[in-house]
């Protein structure tokens, strides 16, 4: 069989001048460059991981994890594991409980265990600490011994609450954070109407943030336009007026608004002096929802102006002039030519202001009064009360809400259209 004339010898490997295969040399050189690049980014990466990723991961873990009861009541935990939910406690269960209580008394951890159960069933904590105080006197028959300390030990609600706390991983905090509780048989149900607060506040937080974002946009748009079109000297002056409050401490700005708007404040005094309102009917602009909206709008305004300005600055005025010369009215020119070109700035400003507003805490705390509170104020409240798991669950829900908004924005506008300046 004749040799195929088209088959040639395999080509000699391409080599560098010193005889190494070119491919290997290239990979080596690129690898070195990559490693060097990584080393340059490494400090930032480590910083982000330690100060951002890890704390958030820890927060998320805390919202589903609380071992206050489970770590301190191993015997009862074993009994719960061996029985199906809803099993009424028998003598073995009470004996296990007695064993745990003796240990809790020795370790001084009854308060810890009671606190965990108390999150889902009020008045459990004192039941635990009172029982622990008498733990050394517990003797068989244990059921009677426990009932002698408190009749509550016979209550199915207590045993259900303990069963649900017996696993360190729990959805209890998310239930509470959505205004639910567990019935005696463990099924979730909504809490009584006068206890419902979190869902309402979540909705309110997002609605108020939306209102504030809209107000910021309405106020910032003309200012940014002016900044972008004024002659340099006057634009600089205006820019200073925008930046000066931006650089001033948040607390100072909030307190100044209190001085301005409170019942005996500057604005009301002026209105009374000019006879617009009489002394008995001073306007209530502080310590309520209106106060929160006004002050937060002012504080977040620069975050809207600056991205808008950076976008408007580079819009060539010739486009608008061309539209006008082709016969468009000024409104049509604005709507069809100018506004679409500012969209990246509007998007960036809106998402910046909205996300900041959703997590805002100090301003509503100071000027919000009764109805100007946001969900972040309750997160702070629970941090202060040492109920960190509930605070973490609420924070996680807030984070999820912001991510959903971000995702929606990406789908509707496209995140690559964002322009921060």
């Amino acid at each position: 069989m004749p040799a195929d004339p088209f088959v040639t010898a395999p080509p000699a490997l391409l080599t560098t001048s010193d005889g190494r295969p070119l491919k290997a040399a290239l990979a080596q050189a690129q690898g070195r460059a990559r490693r060097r690049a990584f080393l340059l980014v490494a400090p930032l990466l480590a910083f982000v991981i330690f100060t951002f990723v890890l704390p958030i991961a820890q927060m998320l873990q805390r919202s589903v994890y609380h071992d206050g009861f489970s770590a301190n009541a191993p015997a009862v935990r074993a009994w719960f594991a061996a029985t199906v939910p809803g099993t009424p406690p028998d003598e073995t269960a009470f004996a296990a409980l007695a064993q745990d209580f003796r240990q809790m008394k020795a370790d001084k951890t009854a308060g810890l265990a009671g606190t965990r159960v108390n999150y889902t069933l009020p008045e459990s904590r004192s039941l635990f600490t009172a029982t622990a105080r008498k733990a050394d006197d517990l003797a068989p028959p244990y059921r009677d011994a426990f009932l002698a300390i408190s009749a509550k030990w016979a209550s199915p609600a207590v045993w259900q609450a303990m069963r649900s706390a017996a696993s360190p991983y729990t959805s209890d905090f998310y239930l509470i954070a959505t205004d639910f509780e567990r019935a005696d048989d463990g099924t979730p149900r909504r809490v009584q109407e006068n206890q419902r607060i979190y869902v309402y506040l979540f909705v309110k937080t997002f609605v108020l943030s939306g209102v504030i974002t809209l107000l910021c946009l309405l106020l910032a748009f003309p200012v940014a336009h002016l900044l972008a079109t004024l002659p340099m000297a006057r634009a600089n002056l205006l820019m200073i007026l925008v930046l000066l409050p931006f650089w001033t401490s948040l607390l100072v700005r909030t307190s100044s608004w209190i001085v301005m708007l409170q019942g005996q404040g500057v604005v009301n005094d002026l209105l009374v002096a000019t006879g617009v309102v009489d002394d008995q009917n001073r306007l209530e602009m502080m310590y309520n929802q209106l106060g929160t909206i006004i002050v937060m709008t002012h504080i977040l305004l620069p975050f809207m102006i600056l991205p808008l300005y950076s976008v408007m600055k580079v819009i060539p005025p010739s486009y608008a002039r061309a539209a006008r010369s082709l016969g468009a009215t000024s409104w049509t020119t604005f709507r069809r030519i100018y506004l679409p070109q500012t969209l990246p700035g509007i998007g960036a400003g809106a998402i910046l202001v909205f996300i900041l507003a959703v997590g805002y805490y100090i301003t509503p705390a100071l000027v919000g009064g009764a109805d100007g509170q946001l969900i972040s104020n309750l997160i702070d409240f629970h941090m202060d009360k040492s109920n960190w798991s509930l605070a973490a669950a609420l924070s996680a829900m807030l984070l999820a809400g912001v991510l959903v908004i971000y995702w929606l924005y990406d789908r509707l506008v496209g995140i690559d259209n964002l322009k921060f300046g």
Partner: protein
Amino acid sequence: MKRLLILSTALTGLAVSAQASDLTVMSWGGAYGAAQTEAHVKPFAAKTGIATVMVDSDNPATPIKAAVEAGNVTTDVASVEYADAVRLCDEGLLEPIDINALPPGADGTPASEDFLPGAVTECGVSTDIWAQVYAYDTTKFPEGAAPTTVADFFDLKKFPGKRGMRKGAKTMLEMALMADGVPPAEVYATLSTPEGVDRAFAKLDTIKDQVVWWEAGAQPPQLLADGEVVMTSAYNGRIFNAAVGEGKPFKIVWDGQIYENEMYVIPKGAPNKDKALEFIKFATSTEGLQAQAQQISYGPARKSANATEIIYKDGKTVMGPNLPTAPENMANALESSFEFWVDKDAELNERFNAWLASN
């Protein structure tokens, strides 16, 4: 850049050397922290030569819990509320303090008999007794037509005008019930029933649209001074400081006061445990408690410290009648119940927050 580096290094060095003291005390800052610095920290350092520093916190119980749980305790002594002292103790986060280790009173009475009932717990020793009271602006009400009882606080007809109230269920519910005619001895029994809670909220409802809510203890004197409210619930020491210290026309109504001990505690694993105990012995001795009461109008929790007259730091005001513990102020007074609030805090605050947010 180099200069910046040197500067920041120097600053870090400063911060480290500031922490390298022999004893760290954590308190609430403001007028209260200043009082404890003057009365306890400085004299203790002068007497023993132990470098003692005071650090501030909004509520020392929160950082202490975090520090002990993280196993990185830098505070040796902390000033915490009574409920927190018992709660943290129950959770094993504090060092126990033996009452017999505390010095006897100036008159020789052993500490166990000298301290008022409940003033020393397993892990804490009382520094003072403070009270939640209400105060009014005397320029707003003529002499003879001024509010005198806790019920007057809720009487908008006789005493029109805005009210300041603490934003929280604790003390506000008790105040509402007492104003509604519940005797102090029955307040917590009433609040333990759903009907009692409803009754308290119904009473709060009657003034809800006239209330300005405050959170920080410094706010109520400010609200009164600004004329934002005509009367406000407040911590008695803050009103005293504004009225006597700054000459503001404020007057306290003691009827229906709710009082509570403030405690010094030692966090578990404190780096200088022995010195911390020495500090507490010094600060809660008869002289130590009196020294603090000269700075701020919170009552000493030792009988021996109340036996002699205490004069305010201005040199003329007698503290006695301005303390929550004065007999004439105790006529209709309620001791805040720790047990009740640890149990019901979450439940009642949820209801309170829901009530507050609804219109």
